[in-house]
């Protein structure tokens, strides 16, 4: 399918602490390829985004709902044949600001590298069950990227890491992000891995409109 020349990219906002983001990360590129749309990966810390939306403090999620979400995420992974291991031991959140800043600093504007490291971090947390909430855990979990504690600390404090992540938080909030994974295409927004079929359908309709436009010219 040929996208219109000015086609908006798919902006994919996963959060490392979100198992549904891990699931969506395995599905999003296929949709982009199918509709010839670039997918821009923009990991974003969900707690920070939600904190921006509501300063009055959110009520904690009820244990009943949380138990269902856990059950559901594991069930979706089993259905799709995805490994799933919930981090055992530390309390959520399973991520930290340093992780996001490190991703952006390490990628340094390279979209392919950003996708690779994001996918790797999601897999470490949700396929291997290792929380990445401390500098040491990041160094160990993302070993293949040749990190050291000193480097992660430097990345975490660096302009290229922190400022980029903050810009992504601003963009996510401005686009109306309310949960993760969050996906935008222009002004159209999609929340949840379970809206990827809707995204697919919506892009297909966009493609048809573009074709009709070409045909009528």
């Amino acid at each position, binding site marked *: 399918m040929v996208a219109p020349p000015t086609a908006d990219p798919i902006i994919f906002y996963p959060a490392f602490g979100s198992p549904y983001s891990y699931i969506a990360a395995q599905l999003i590129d296929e949709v982009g390829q199918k509709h010839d749309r670039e997918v821009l990966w923009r990991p974003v810390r969900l707690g920070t985004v939600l904190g921006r*939306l509501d300063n009055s403090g959110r009520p904690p999620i*009820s244990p009943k709902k949380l138990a269902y979400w856990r059950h559901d995420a594991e069930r*979706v992974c089993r259905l799709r044949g995805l490994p799933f291991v919930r981090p055992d031991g530390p309390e959520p959140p399973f991520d930290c600001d340093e992780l996001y800043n490190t991703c952006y600093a390490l990628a340094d504007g390279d979209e392919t590298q950003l996708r690779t490291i994001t996918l790797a971090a999601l897999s470490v947390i949700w396929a291997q069950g290792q929380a990445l909430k401390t500098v040491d855990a990041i160094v160990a979990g993302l070993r293949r990227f040749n990190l050291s504690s000193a480097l992660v600390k430097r990345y975490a404090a660096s302009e290229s890491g922190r400022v980029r992540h903050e810009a992504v938080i601003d963009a996510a909030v401005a686009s109306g992000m309310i949960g993760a994974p969050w996906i935008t295409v222009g002004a159209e927004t999609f929340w949840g891995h*379970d809206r990827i079929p809707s995204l697919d359908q919506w892009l297909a309709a966009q493609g048809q409109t573009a074709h009709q436009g070409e045909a009528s010219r």
Partner: protein
Amino acid sequence: MAQGIDFYFDFASPYGYLASVQIDGWAQQRGCDVTWRPMMLGAAFKEVGTGPLLNYPIKGQYAALDIARSARALGVTCLLPDGFPHGTVAAARGFYWLADQDPQAARKLAHAFYHAYFGEGRDVSSPEATADIAASIGVERDAFFAAIQTPAIKERLKEETTAALARGVFGSPFFFVDDEPFWGSDRLEQMSRWLETGGW
């Protein structure tokens, strides 16, 4: 093959409506029967500390968009009546009163109510308007109107709601395939897989 499929919903739930327009065809294709179980979602919200999705400022905007988009994908209209959401206990009570006599008529009432409320965007939540809907599907209006005011039927809806919450329901629509829970109108495909495979 699994046999008990329960469909929990609130009559003021847009996603419940979106499930209702799909469920009969879905069940027919799979040769299974679905038990409809209206409940008071407000009680579930109270239990888990949430509220109607559309009442949240930013989440509500997204939900409105998602509901409209999901309805378009299904080829149905979903309009929110002025003053949405309304208490829809009259419809839920009437449903159980009818279901005890004629489950098919109860289901017909549910479709007619949902159609008027979301399909046409009319506030039909009052006992009078709900009785009019019942009359439109051939139910004796006065008997219906009297029945939905009785203490027994009020108690019945409370009991059904309490039982739903005890089973794990916290949103609408909410399904059980045997004892497996599925939340949301977007989970029908997974429910099909669960039926076909016996679970995974």
